């Protein structure tokens, strides 16, 4: 057996075979951590953006704060949170959500503010109320840009989840952490390749979602 796969091999396939259940479990945890972070980030970002658009004076503080959160190095943030919330899923999610906010808020705001003034003027002139205009005109038109934000946030989060291994909830990152500790390359490769695959699949899924939600951009112009 050892002859078949030398000790220098990057991946010991029989190790992968023996840890199939664990790999599946960690992959699901990875997806779960990402989905929760992006989901909560999305809800917060919509609320914050509506607030920024409705009350203009809140716009700068909102963009500034989400920018500052994005700027904190992830290691420092985990180090800061652990004494407060412990090495928990909550700690991991607080950090992950903070990193999604800037991209989501900025893309949603840019999308809404990019709606042509003529379209907004026409909506007002037709008798749309402000809230109805937002829901049926501005938001759908901002969707392509917003989904671009979701794509970036999701792909970034898939990568960041591996760092949450430091607080014991890192999905596939736990393999990387384990491999580094034991100086054993196989789990490192499993963690790295798995996380890259997830990022690529998520990216493709959002491209599809964008295509599905924006039929008006699909047709070729005459």
């Amino acid at each position: 057996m050892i002859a078949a796969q030398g000790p220098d091999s990057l991946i010991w396939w029989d190790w992968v075979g023996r840890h199939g259940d664990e790999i599946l479990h960690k992959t699901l945890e990875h997806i779960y951590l990402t989905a929760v972070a992006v989901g909560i980030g999305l809800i917060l970002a919509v609320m914050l953006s509506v607030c920024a658009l409705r009350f203009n004076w809140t716009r700068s503080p909102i963009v500034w704060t989400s920018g500052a959160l994005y700027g904190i190095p992830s290691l420092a943030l985990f180090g800061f949170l652990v004494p407060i919330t412990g090495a928990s899923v909550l700690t991991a999610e607080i950090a992950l959500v903070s990193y999604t906010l800037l991209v989501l808020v900025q893309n949603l705001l840019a999308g809404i503010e990019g709606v042509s003034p003529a379209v907004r003027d026409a909506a007002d002139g037709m008798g749309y109320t402000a809230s109805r205009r937002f829901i049926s005109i501005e938001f759908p038109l901002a969707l392509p840009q917003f989904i671009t934000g979701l794509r970036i946030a999701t792909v970034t989060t898939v990568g960041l989840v591996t760092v949450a291994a430091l607080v014991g909830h890192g999905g596939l990152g736990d393999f990387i952490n384990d491999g580094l500790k034991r100086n054993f390359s196989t789990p490192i490769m499993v963690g790295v390749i798995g996380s890259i695959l997830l990022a690529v699949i998520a990216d493709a899924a959002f491209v599809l979602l964008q295509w599905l939600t924006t039929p008006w951009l699909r047709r070729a112009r005459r």
Partner: protein
Amino acid sequence: MTDNSLSVRESVGTAPAISIRGVTKRYAGATNAAVDSLDLDIAQGELVVFVGPSGCGKTTTLRMINRLEDPTAGSIHVNGTDVTEIDPAELRRSIGYVIQQGGLFPHQSVATNIGCVPRLLGWPKARIRERVEELIELVRLDPDLLDRYPSSLSGGQQQRVGVARALAADPPILLMDEPYSAVDPVVRAELRHELRSLQERLAKTIVFVTHDIDEAIDLGDRIAVFKTGGHLAQYSVPTELLARPDSQMVEDFLGADRTLRRLSLLTVTTAQLEPATATTPPLTIEASFSLRSTLDALLANATDLATVVDLDGSVLGVITLDAIAQIASGDPDSEPVRPWAAPRRKR
């Protein structure tokens, strides 16, 4: 729905459709008023064109009618109701609004765009669909376009959709803000022609903003010439405006060939015709010709006489260069005429 107690539909006798009284609009931070103490009445069923150089307040005035802007001072009444007493969204649903390229919603199909005001008013789906089909016919568009998105339509088609959308809930008033400025001259002339004939049939009150004096003369029952600073320079029917501009500014704005333009608005029968004699001139002119076309024909044939005939060929009389000259030099009260349209409604 629109039969709300505060709706603009409640017309009061023959009062003006729109009455603007002492209206001033001053934007925050601006030293000069955009519109300055403006008084203007717009009669029911008239097509009034606001024309003037940029920054003259014509668009601002239009936008105050459906409360996209509110006046700093003065009042605007629509069919007898002060607009400030009506909820802005409610008011706007009862007034048609058309802007450049129609301002169509790019993410909605043509049908959804046209049905937007009825949807806001809560009409049942079947009724909206029926109305949309009616409208697409009214603006002469192919029903196959209903499921397309605006970006796949030509400029002229988009503009027609914009008009259909504005007419969807059958509003008595239509506001049009430089609607044709993004389409080419040929399509533009076609759209103007269609708007005219649409108005002949529907008898809407239309306020139309343009910076193009030719468009104003071509379209307007009445023309309001604005001058910089938000003042009304002159408010008259086109033939009178062309015959008697009451300031240098208006005269300059009308351009050098205003006499010829006025002749193009009058038919040959508005001139004093000589009785036909046994030897009628060989050149014949149809009664629907404008005086300008008649003049052109006379000059081209190097003659000063032509026989005027009606549609079935019977002779009405003889037109002379002198008779045209007489009209050109005076008589602004002659009835304006549009060669393409059915006889105008009497007002």
